[in-house]
Structures are given as C-alpha cells and as structure tokens.
C-alpha cells in the first residue's frame, strides 16, 4: 500500500451525488488510519468526481456491474495494494463511521468477517413487515445451514479480514451478495460474527431493493444460499 495504512474502506456507489461527499468526509474524519476507496458502479452523475474531490481513491467501472461485482472490485483493489483489512460502508450515509471501530475491533479478536447489525439490540430500527420477514427468513436459513446466529444478515455494514478478502477475491456473488457471502465464508472454514450498531436513516437515494423485485430477491438469495454449501471449496 502506498500510504502505509492497513485498512481500506470500500464504498460501493451508484448515482449517490447527494450524499457521497459527506460520507467520504465523515469517513476521513473518523478513520484517519484508513484509506477510502469509492467503487463507482457506472454512475451517470458526478458521484466519482465528488468522491475524488474529497480525497477518496475512486475506481470507476465501465458500466453498471451490480453491487456484488462492485464490492469484489474493492476486495481485489485492497489485496493488490497490500491492505490487511477492509470495511464496507454504504454510500447513502446510513452507516455511521463512528461505529466502525466496533467492527474493526472484533476483527482484531480473530473473526474473519464482522456484520454491523441493527437487530442484536434494540437500536431503533424499524423496517416494513415484509422486509423484516425476509431478513428473519435469511437469518433462520443461515442458522439452519451453519449453526450460527446472525440477526441482520442483509446488513451492508461489515468488516473483513485479509483471509475473507482472499476468498472474496476469488468468488463473490454478483447481485444481493450479503447473505450468500456468509454461507460462502462458512463453507470455506472462515468465521463471522455480529455486533450491534446504530444506523442513520438513509440521507439520499433509495434501497436497491424495490417492492417489485422483492420476490425475485427472496427467491434468488434463497436458491443461492441453499446451493452454496454444495459448491466446490475455494480455499484449500
């Protein structure tokens, strides 16, 4: 790594010009020991330029590749540039950087991936009934397949060790990757845990999951989750 820093904050962003500058500024203020990489997933607005102006590194995908591929670009960048850990943060401002220390701290205890969760304690999060049902279903599936409890498996606020990065370098789901990634970790003998964090209401943009695509999301993720335990191991 050119800057001598250990941790790379990866911010996948698609048309987030309203929030991206503020998010990068907050990250730089709260995490002086980390570099910030914005992966611009084919934005048509000024997301990339605004992030660069705030001092973030920016990798711009030539077309919209999906959140999973954008994240994997970040993982590849991290390992190629010698970082030892990565933090994933949404570009819409709902993941407060002041909570990042909790995630990175657990990484230091030897976990390979730490999920920042809205549900372990009552952190004031309320979603729609359908969304809560979906999250509960995925949580249960993960428990059934791995024997481990994660109450907020769809959270995109997470920290990863270099071992997890090496796995994701080789394979990371393309769309809706969060849940599948946990099973993938377990399949390859890596560990994950969860810490409670408080989150902000999103400042701009929309959830990547609309009501219409909700059904597809549930079916696709369920299928992927059920198949993953039978996939070839990536790590020897």
């Amino acid at each position, binding site marked *: 790594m050119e800057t001598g820093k250990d941790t790379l904050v990866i911010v996948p962003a698609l048309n987030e010009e309203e929030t991206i500058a503020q998010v990068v500024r907050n990250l730089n203020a709260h995490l002086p020991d980390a570099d910030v990489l914005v992966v611009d997933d084919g934005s048509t607005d000024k997301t990339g330029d605004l992030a660069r102006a705030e001092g973030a590194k920016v*990798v*711009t*995908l*030539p077309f919209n590749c*999906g959140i999973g*591929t954008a994240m994997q670009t970040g993982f590849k960048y991290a390992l190629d540039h010698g970082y030892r850990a990565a933090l994933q943060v949404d570009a819409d401002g709902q993941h407060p950087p002041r909570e990042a220390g909790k995630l990175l701290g657990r990484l230091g205890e030897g976990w390979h991936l730490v999920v920042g969760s809205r549900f372990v304690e009552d952190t004031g999060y309320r979603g729609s009934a359908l969304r809560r049902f979906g999250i509960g279903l995925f949580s249960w599936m993960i428990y059934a397949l791995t024997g481990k409890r994660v109450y907020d498996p769809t959270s995109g606020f997470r920290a990863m060790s270099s071992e997890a990065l090496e796995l994701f370098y080789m394979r990371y789901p393309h769309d809706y990757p969060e849940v599948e990634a946990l099973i993938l970790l377990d399949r390859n003998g890596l560990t994950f845990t969860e810490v409670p964090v408080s989150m902000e209401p999103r400042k701009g943009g929309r959830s990547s999951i609309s009501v219409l695509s909700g059904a597809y999301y549930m079916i696709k993720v369920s299928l992927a989750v059920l198949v993953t335990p039978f996939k070839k191991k990536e790590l020897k």
Partner: protein
Amino acid sequence: MKIAFHLRILIGAICLSTVGIIFVLIRQNRLKEKYGVLWLFAAFSIFVFGLWPDLLTVVSKLFRLHHLTTLFMVAFLFLFGLVLKFTVAISQLYDRNLALAQEVAMLKESLKGLAVKMETGLDQKEEPVG
C-alpha cells in the same frame, strides 16, 4: 414405412444445406467449431431419421407414442439441450465480462496515479541531468 422419393430429396437438401451453412459460418469465423459440431450432429440426425423412419417407429413402439409425438420429443430434447448449453456459455461469458470490467477499472485508476506521479516527478527535475 416407405418414404416418397421427392420427400427424400427434400430431406437430403435440408441436411446438405445445413452442412453447407455450418461450413461457411465456421470458415468465416462466425461460428465456433464446438457449436458447429452440435449442428452437424443435428443435420446427421435429420438425415438418419429421414432415410430410415423405421428407427423412429422403434422408439415410438418402445414408449408407446404416436409417430409425430416421438418426432416432437426428439426435436424438443435436442433444443432443450442446446438452450441449456447456451445458458451455461452465457453464464461463463457474464463472469468473464465482469472480471474484465473490474480489471479495466483498476488499470485505469493505477494509470491515473502513474500519470500524476510522472507529472510531479517532471516538475521536480526541471533541469535536465548531465
């Protein structure tokens, strides 16, 4: 079962033109050989069943199906296999396409970094050495 002479001519013509089209497409690099083999196999099957329709009758008797049903079943299975093969090929292309996009994005970023380094480097060495 007897097949009318003009029908045999038609079947032969279909097979020959399929083989011809496949040959031309491969020669012009518009079709990969591995898919060409598939279509040659299809043409060969039409040829065999066309000249000896009794083979189909054997299959029909085995499964107690009507002739026409057997014909559709064979054609359907072939097309089913073909589409499956295509979706597998598309999945592979999809993966590679995304991996290429990632590579391009990262290369561009490091190229930008290099360009900046070179500019600042040039600024520092205004006077040529030696």
